């Protein structure tokens, strides 16, 4: 009898095992969680951006049939502490439900507990709140002069942080600043490019809005919380801190999570309130965010203004960069809010060997929804500012944009490379990625074709962008939670494999990639492997999924745990087969003696023996279950080059993306199909930022783009066929050589598109245009006006 040969799976385009259940509607999301006696929460939210609460009347709501309880912010404060943040910077008190003052439209002012969602919503509507309106702080530049008012007393001129310097000549704590190198670079410059740019505010828009179910069991004194989160272990820690419970008393579960894009890293007020209400009332309660709420109540992303100056020689060599960054962080510091723009500073070196850089960051409070991580989180902003400025430099010098970049690359023999910003790039070969992209699009021919189309009167432009990002986050020094990841691999008694991961995939496909790895490691079919995640009672420890870390850090932990249990299993097999453990090999569902395939046991037989070890081999404990914590020695720095072609309609200003060529280097790839899917999603959001997406506030602090009628999401019809290529430069910082790819697509595509549109409109003297590239804005540039 011959058994089918098991192929090696790592590196193969294995289809996602998650997809059949998800696309057939068989996934279990938070809103699918049902518990006997479950009550429902609805939040009354502020409809003014800035105001002092004069009066809240909850009597009508309380009188409604089916209403269990109503709590104002003041009442919630009696049983819930203020919200903590995850950064070490000074921060104003932030109550999950506002007390006295509201600071953004959509901030909770009261919460209703009722028998169902409909009653809860009706009751929330019946709460009457009167405000003394305060002037809304909307414009960040004006806010920094203290006008028209202060968002928080005690934060003069609305400065939340900074000005905080970083880069050449600055000590790591920012306290000692030596400007001589940067000044010299600008003294020696033959040309200086200066531009104010805005990387605009975006709304994350996960397909599944947020949701929480909290079930406090008074008899046991324990709490179970289901939440649509990217990191249940962090949720557990934060809940324990805020509720004054032990981590052992809280179980946090992230069931299926319909996308997060960074916005579900933060631990939200609604999560604390839901848990606290469950404990106070001793009943299970559920809160499900609706789409209208998600626009204002889930953190926003980006919103950084950059004043950039680039000093260069006329041969295109960049001598120095100055970046003055102003981040509009909205009304409050959330978990990582303050840290996100620091990543923009960290990546100011981009892919270039720039000798002198000064970045200065100021974070400003405004009466808007708070910002936090959004796909790319600080790195797309850095990439955008530098790549736009380099394009402006190339245009000014009348040089090929690819050539200017080539002249400034960090050479491949300089890795690991210490940047001016304090990062140590692990590995890279930027010229290879650039050359691959130029070859893929036939760069010289592309330029000729553009010129030919222009001669016909068409407005066609070509844009190019390099990128490098910081991923695989990160060593423990780079995160307040610790930056390791955990995994436990168990060979079950029947020879099947259960593995846990502290990564908490919500679209990344780790149930597939991790199973591929274990199937190869043990020589068993992938169908015999199950990956468990997202439940702190099942997954002992973990950090979560963000910062493109799940494969690079979580995958490495899995690999280590697998290696440990494999070594132990080899010792059981050695005892059964009367061989030395080092001679045992795992292949094709069998465990055998190397070079003697007749001396073999099935994988299941060895597993069974490990659990009924008669006799127990000397020096071994029964069972096959091992765990590992992986602490990376550094972040990873994936990179790539994106090139696109855009045509602008001369009459309407509508931009149309014609081609997009992406070369991405994420190191070793476990599953190229999944990697492409990740890049597709990233490109969609990167293109969306360039062309369509933009959170717009009115002068009184109302979110004008508060629904899909006004907030433009990209659709499939907005995209050309993505032409995707890879180069492979493994990282030395983890045993897999994988760098991470979850965010990459958002980095290169955005500046490439703006560069292309500026190129298309260059005949009109256009040198820069801020995103989003609205048709009217481009039309006005063509009318000779300013955008």
């Amino acid at each position, binding site marked *: 009898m011959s058994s089918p040969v098991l192929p090696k799976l790592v590196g193969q385009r294995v289809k996602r095992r998650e997809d059949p259940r998800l696309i057939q509607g068989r996934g279990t999301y938070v809103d699918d969680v049902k518990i006997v006696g479950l009550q429902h929460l609805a939040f009354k939210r502020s409809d003014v951006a800035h105001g002092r609460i004069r009066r809240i009347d909850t009597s009508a709501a309380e009188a409604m049939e089916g209403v269990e309880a109503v709590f104002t912010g003041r009442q919630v404060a009696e049983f819930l502490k203020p919200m903590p943040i995850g950064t070490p910077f000074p921060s104003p008190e932030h109550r999950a439900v506002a007390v006295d003052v509201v600071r953004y439209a959509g901030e909770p002012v009261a919460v209703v507990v009722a028998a169902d*969602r*409909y009653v809860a*919503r*009706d009751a929330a*509507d019946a709460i009457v709140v009167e405000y003394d309106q305060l002037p809304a702080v909307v414009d960040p530049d004006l806010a920094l002069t203290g006008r028209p008012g202060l968002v928080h007393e005690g934060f003069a001129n609305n400065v939340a942080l900074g000005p905080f310097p970083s880069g050449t000549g600055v000590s790591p704590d920012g306290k000692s600043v030596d400007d001589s190198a940067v000044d010299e670079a600008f003294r020696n410059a033959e040309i200086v490019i200066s531009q104010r740019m805005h990387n605009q505010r975006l709304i994350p828009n996960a397909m599944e809005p947020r949701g929480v179910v909290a079930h406090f069991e008074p008899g046991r004194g324990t709490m179970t919380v289901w939440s649509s989160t990217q990191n249940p272990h962090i949720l557990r820690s934060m809940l324990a801190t805020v509720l004054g419970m032990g981590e052992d008393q809280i179980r946090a579960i992230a069931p299926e999570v319909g996308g997060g894009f960074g916005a579900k890293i933060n631990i939200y007020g609604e999560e604390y309130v839901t848990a606290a209400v469950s404990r106070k009332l001793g009943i299970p309660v559920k809160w499900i965010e*609706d*789409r*209208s709420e998600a626009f204002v109540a889930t953190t926003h992303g980006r919103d950084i203004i950059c004043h950039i100056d680039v000093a260069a020689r006329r041969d295109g060599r960049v001598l120095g960069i100055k970046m003055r960054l102003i981040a509009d962080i909205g009304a409050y510091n959330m978990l990582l809010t303050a840290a996100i723009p620091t990543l923009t500073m960290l990546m100011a070196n981009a892919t270039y060997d720039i000798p002198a850089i000064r970045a200065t960051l100021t974070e400003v409070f405004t009466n808007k929804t708070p910002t936090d991580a959004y796909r790319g989180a600080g790195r797309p902003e850095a990439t955008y500012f530098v790549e736009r400025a380099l394009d402006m430099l190339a245009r000014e010098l009348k040089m090929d944009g690819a050539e200017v970049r080539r002249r400034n690359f960090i050479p491949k023999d300089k890795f690991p490379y210490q940047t001016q910003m304090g990062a140590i790039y692990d590995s890279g070969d930027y010229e290879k990625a650039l050359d691959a992209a130029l070859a893929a699009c036939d760069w010289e021919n592309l330029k000729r074709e553009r010129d030919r189309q222009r001669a016909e009167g068409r407005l066609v432009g070509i844009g190019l962008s390099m990128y490098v990002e910081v991923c695989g986050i990160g060593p423990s020094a780079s995160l307040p939670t610790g930056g390791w990841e955990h995994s436990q691999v168990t060979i079950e008694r029947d020879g099947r494999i259960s593995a846990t991961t502290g990564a908490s995939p919500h679209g990344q496909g780790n149930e597939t990639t991790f199973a591929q790895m274990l199937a190869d490691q043990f020589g068993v079919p992938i169908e015999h492997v199950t990956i468990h995640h997202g439940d702190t009672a099942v997954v002992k420890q973990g950090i979560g999924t963000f910062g493109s870390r799940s494969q690079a850090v979580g995958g490495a932990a899995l690999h280590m745990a697998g290696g440990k249990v494999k070594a132990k299993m080899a010792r059981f097999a050695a005892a059964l087969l009367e061989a030395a453990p080092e001679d045992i090999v795992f292949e094709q569902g069998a465990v055998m003696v190397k070079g003697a395939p007749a001396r073999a046991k099935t994988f299941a037989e060895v597993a069974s023996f490990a659990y009924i070890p008669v006799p127990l081999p000397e020096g071994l404990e029964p069972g096959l279950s091992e765990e590992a914590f992986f602490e990376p020695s550094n972040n990873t720095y994936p990179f790539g080059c994106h090139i696109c072609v855009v045509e602008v309609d001369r*009459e*309407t200003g*509508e931009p149309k993306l014609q081609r997009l060529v992406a070369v991405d280097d994420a190191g070793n790839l476990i599953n190229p199909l999944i990697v492409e899917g990740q890049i597709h999603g990233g490109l969609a959001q990167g293109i969306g930022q360039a*062309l*369509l997406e933009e959170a*717009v506030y009115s002068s009184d602090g109302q979110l*004008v*783009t508060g*629904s*899909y*009628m*006004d*907030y*433009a*999401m990209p659709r499939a019809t907005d995209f050309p066929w993505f032409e995707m290529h890879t180069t492979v430069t493994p990282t030395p910082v983890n045993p897999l050589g994988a760098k991470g790819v979850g965010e990459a697509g958002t980095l290169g595509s955005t500046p490439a598109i703006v560069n292309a549109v500026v190129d298309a409109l260059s005949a009109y003297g256009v040198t820069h245009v801020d995103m989003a590239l*609205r*048709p*009217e804005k481009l*039309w*006005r540039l063509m009318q000779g006006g300013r955008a």
Partner: protein
Amino acid sequence: MIPSSFDYYRAASLDDAIAKLAAGDGAKILAGGHSLIPLMKLRLSEPQLLVDVARLPELSGIRRQDGLIEIGAGTVHHAVASSALVRDACPMLAEVAGAIGDPQVRNRGTLGGSLAHADPAADYPAAMLALDAEIVLRGPGGTRTVRARDFFLGLFTVDLAPDELIVAVRFAPARAAAYARLSQRASHFPIVGVAAVLDLQGGTVRGARVGLTGVGTHATRLAAVEQALAGRPADAATFEAAAAHAADGLEDVNADIHASAEYRRAMVVVFTRRALADAAARG
């Protein structure tokens, strides 16, 4: 996104539906629900009673009758877009229907619903104006007919009594007709939508009707453009000249974050010219 509470009634017949409407009680007609339900979810509309007419056979069907095309008010956009009769007799209308929303919307939303709701940026009203369509209404007193140009009165306002509903629309076939629109990139409603119907004889425009949507409180005819075309050769120069002043008489032009009034005016010119050229190319 949770509506306030309401009652639901599925009408057994057209007269049954009209009787429910006539009884008052804050009743609203529900057909495809693609305008009404989103408003209810946002609590911008809070009807007490929904009278569902979606399954009434009296409101369905696309037919040719006495030389006219008649489309039942309950016909979904997809049925109009894919109707062989419409595509042959009036390809412009198929084009309009196919441009509305997305496949889900087009398989639920109805012609009558769109016309009765009269969103200032709805596509159908421009087409009805250009086709000089008759809108057939029925109420407790029986049936009456209103010309499209008299039907659209203002912002979400049409010549339709609270106890009336739209039964059908009727119009003469028009091959030399086209629709051109600039899409608002979030909602995909038109910022400017222009429907043009040309009466061509030889190489000459004998007459023209041009309907405009998205620009003001409600869809309107571009009378000046129509006059500028009459008797002129059907060529690019004529269309350019006629379209050049398309926006001149427009008052209260809409302005929002997607398009200022100035931009809308400029786009009226562009899309009028495009619609005229496309219509002539079909003639």
